C-alpha cells in the first residue's frame, strides 16, 4: 500500500512538475514536435493529438488509466491500441514507451547485476581484510586505491577501459549480445563496463565494510565468541561480518535500485541501449512520456529495493527479527 502511494506520488509530482519547471506552455510544448514554421492550426492539432489541450487532472487520469487499463491512440490513418501497462506514446518517435522500456531492461539488468556481483565481492573482501589488519601496508594500499576509485568519474574510467581493452588490446567485444543468445559473449562484451562500474562502487563498500568491521570486532559479543573457543574464521564471518553487513545492505539496496533505473553515464559511454541511455535520449529531445516512464520505473526499482532491504535485515541481523 505504502509502495503504491510512493510510486503514485512520484508520478504525480513529475507529471505536474516537469513541464512547469521547464517553463513551458502547452503551445510551446506542442510546437517542439512540429517541424518548420508551424501554423496555429498545426499547433492546435498536435496539441489535441497529444492530449495537451486537456486540463492537467484529466491528463493525469488518462495516464494512470493507461497504466492500469491500456489506452487507444488515434494518430493518422490507423488506430493504435496500447495494452496495459501503457506508459504512453512517445511524442517524438511515435512509439509506445512500455515496449521500449522492456526491450531495454535486460541490458540495464545485465549491467547492474554483473557490476553488483563484482563490487560486492571485491568491496567486502577488501574491507574485511583491511579491517582485520588495520594500518598495515595492505590496508593503506587498498584504501588508497579505493579513494582513487571513488574519485574517478565514469566518463574517464569508462572511456579509458574502452580505449585499452577494446581498441589497444582487443580482448573484449563491443556490441552487446543478449544473455539468451550467447552467455559467454554477453559476459565478454559487458566485462569492461562491469569493471568500470565496480571500481566506482566497490571503493565505497570497502570503506563501509572496513569501518563496520572495525567497530564490531571490538564489540563484547566478539570477545565472547572468541572466549567460547570458536575458530577465528567463524568469529569473523559468522559474527563479525554478519553484524557489519547491515549498513552495507542498506546502501546496496539503494545503489542497485538506482542502477536498475538506469546508469545514465555508463550506458552512454559504453553505447549500451539501456534504460539510462533512453532517459538521456528522451531528455535531450524533450520527450515527456518516455521521461515519465523511465522515472516511474526507476522509482519502482528504488521502492522495491528498499522493501527487499527491509526483509534482508531480518535475515542478516538477528537483533531486528520479530519474534
Amino acid at each position: 500500500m505504502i509502495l503504491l502511494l510512493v510510486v503514485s506520488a512520484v508520478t504525480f509530482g513529475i507529471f505536474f512538475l516537469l513541464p512547469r519547471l521547464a517553463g513551458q506552455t502547452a503551445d510551446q510544448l506542442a510546437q517542439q514536435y512540429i517541424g518548420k514554421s508551424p501554423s496555429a492550426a498545426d499547433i492546435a492539432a498536435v496539441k489535441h493529438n497529444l492530449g495537451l489541450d486537456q486540463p492537467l487532472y484529466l491528463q493525469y487520469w488518462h495516464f494512470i488509466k493507461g497504466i492500469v487499463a491500456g489506452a487507444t491512440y488515434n494518430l493518422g490513418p490507423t488506430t493504435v491500441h496500447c495494452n496495459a501497462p501503457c506508459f504512453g506514446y512517445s511524442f517524438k518517435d511515435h512509439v509506445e514507451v512500455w515496449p521500449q522500456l522492456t526491450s531495454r531492461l535486460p541490458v540495464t539488468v545485465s549491467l547492474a547485476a554483473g557490476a553488483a556481483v563484482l563490487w560486492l565481492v571485491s568491496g567486502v573482501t577488501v574491507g574485511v581484510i583491511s579491517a582485520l589488519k588495520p594500518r598495515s601496508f595492505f590496508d593503506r594500499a587498498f584504501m588508497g586505491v579505493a579513494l582513487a576509485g571513488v574519485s574517478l568519474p565514469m566518463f574517464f574510467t569508462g572511456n579509458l577501459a574502452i580505449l585499452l581493452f577494446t581498441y589497444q588490446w582487443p580482448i573484449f567485444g563491443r556490441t552487446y549480445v543478449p544473455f539468451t543468445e550467447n552467455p559467454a559473449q554477453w559476459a565478454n562484451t559487458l566485462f569492461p563496463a562491469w569493471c568500470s562500474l565496480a571500481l566506482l562502487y566497490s571503493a565505497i563498500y570497502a570503506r563501509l565494510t572496513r569501518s563496520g568491521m572495525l567497530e564490531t570486532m571490538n564489540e563484547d559479543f566478539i570477545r565472547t565468541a572468541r572466549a567460547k573457543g570458536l575458530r577465528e574464521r567463524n568469529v569473523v564471518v559468522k559474527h563479525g561480518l554478519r553484524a557489519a553487513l547491515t549498513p552495507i545492505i542498506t546502501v546496496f539496496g539503494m545503489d542497485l535500485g538506482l542502477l536498475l533505473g538506469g546508469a545514465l553515464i555508463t550506458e552512454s559511454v559504453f553505447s549500451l541501449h539501456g534504460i539510462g541511455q533512453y532517459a538521456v535520449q528522451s531528455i535531450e529531445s524533450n520527450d515527456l512520456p518516455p521521461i515519465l516512464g523511465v522515472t516511474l520505473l526507476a522509482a519502482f526499482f528504488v521502492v522495491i529495493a528498499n522493501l527487499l532491504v527491509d526483509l534482508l535485515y531480518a535475515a542478516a541481523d538477528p537483533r531486528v527479527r520479530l519474534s
Partner: protein
Amino acid sequence: MRRSALAAVAAIGAATLLMAGCSKADDSKSDNGGTKAAGANAATKDVVNASTHKGGTVTYELSDVPDSFDPGNTYYAYMYNFSRLYARPLMTFEPGPGSKGNTLVPDLAASKGVSSDGGKTWTYKLRSGLKYQDGTAITSKDVKYAVERSNFARDVLSLGPNYFQQFLVGGKDYKGPYKDKSAEGLKSIATPDDTTIVFHLNTAFQEFDYLVAAPQTAPVPQAKDTGVDYVKNIVSSGSYQFSSYEDGKSATLVRNKNWDPKTDPLRKQYPDKIVVNLKVNADTIDKDVLAGNAIDMGGTGVQAATQAQLLTSADKKAGTDNTFGGRLVYMAINTKVAPFTNVQCRKAVEYAIDKVSVQTAEGGPIRGEIATTVLPPDITGYVKDDQYASTGNKGDVAKAKAALQACGKTTISTNLSARSDRPQEISAATAIINSLKAVGINASLKQYPSGKYFTDYAGVPKFTEQQNIGLIMMQWGADWPSGYGFEQQILNGAAIGASGNTNLSQYDNKTVNNLLSKAIGTEDVTTRNSMYAQVDKQTMSDAVLVPLTYFKVLLARPANYSNLVSTAAFSGQYDYLNIGTTK
C-alpha cells in the same frame, strides 16, 4: 533550415581530451587497411577508393537518433542523404565531389521537370518498370500521396518541411489524406496517367527541381501507410529494404530484389547489407571510423580529441576530408535597434571585427574559413567578394572609428545575443566583444538556450528591440543548395515573423526583396545566379550582417570503404548512395 546533427556529450568529449595522449601507439598501424590513404581532402576532389566490388556489410554509426527514417517525416540532411537507399525521390543529386554534388539529376523521374505557365506548372514523367520491394508497380499516384501525407497531415507527420503546402495551389485549405478521404485528394497535383505527375504552383518557382529532390516525393503506397507507424514497415522503392528496425537502437537493410538496375542509373547496390547503429558514443564512432569500419552518419566530423590526433600526423591527415558544411556562421546586425538603424554604425561593426580571433575561437581554420560574403563557396550563386577588407582579416580600427564618426557617435552601448549551450558560439561572441571594445562599441553578452533562441528570444523582433539586442549570433544552412534556398529566409523582408523569425537583421530592402522574387521566377540559371550574387552584394553594402566563417567539418575517411565522395548537396557528408566495402 535543414538541421544538421550536433553531438552534445560535452562532458565525455572533455574527458577524452585528457586521454588523447594515450593512443600514440596507434600511429604505427594506420596503414593496416591495406590501401594507402588517398591524401588529405581527396574525397572533396574525386571519388576515393572507387570500386565495383560487391558484398560485405557497410556500417553507419550515429551518436544521436534521427527524427525519423520515414522519408515523409524527416528534416535532417543526413537522412535526406541516407533515405535515398530505400526511398527514391523524383529528383536527386549526382554523387560528385564538392559543389559538383549540387548537380540535380532525375531519379524516379525519367528526366528533369518540364515547366510551363512561366514556371507555375511542373510536369514529371516517371521511369518505366519501377517496382516496390514487394514487386508491385510504383505509380505517379504514390508520389502524389507521399507529398500529401508529408506536407498536409502535419498533426501526424510533422517533422519535415512544408514547402509543398506553401507553394501548391490550394495548399492552405487541403486537410491531408488522413482527414480528406476524397478520391482525388489535393487538386493541384494531377496524375493524368500512372507515369505522369503535374504540380500546379501558386507562384512561378524555377527551382522546383530542388524541392522534388526532398525525400517527401519518394513514393508511399497508400494501402501500406500507417501514419506515424509507417516508419516500422517502410516499403522500399530503392536499392535496399529494411530487414529489421528497432526504434532508437538500430536498423538493418538488405538488397531489394525487386529493384531493377535498368530503372536506375545512380544506385549500384554494392554491399550485401547496411547496418545503422544509433546512439553510439561519439568517441567510439571516431575509433570505428579510424579503424576503417564505420561511417559517421551524422557527418558532423570527428571530436576535438580525435582532430588533434589526426592533424599532428601527416599519415593520418591523409585519410581526412576537411569540407565545407554548406553553412555560414555570422552575426546579424539588428537594423531596428538604434543606433544600428544608421548604416554607418553598422559599417563600423563590419570594420571593427577581427575575424581571425573569431575563427580561432570557433576552433581554427579546420572548423571554418574566414567569410566575407553571405553565400558560402559550396552554394550555387557564390561570387567572391570582400567589401570590408582589412589586412589579414584582422579588422580595421581606423576605418571603424571613421564610420562611427560618420554615424555621429563616439561610443555605442548594445547587447550581443548567443546560444548558451553552444560553447563555440559563446567564445566567438566573446572574441567579437573584445574587437568591438577597441573602437568604442561596448557590447554585453546575453545568453539564451538554443531550444528557444528563435521562438522566444533572438527570433522575436519585439524582444530584441525591447532588450536593446543590436547584435545577434547566428548560423545558417540552406534547405537546398541554391542562392534562393540560402538567402530567402534570412534576407527577405517578407520572411520577418513575430516569432521564430530567421531574418534576424529585420532587413527589409525593396531591391533585395524584388531581386529574390524575380530570381525564383527566372528560368535561365546564369541570370538567376547573378541575381543571388547581387543580393549578396547589396546585403553586404547595407552591412546588415557580418559573415564570420564558412563552416567546415573534418571527416575521417574509413579505409575499408569504397566510393567515398564528399558532396556539397548534403552539407559535405559522403554521398551514401554507393558506399561499398572492400573487406
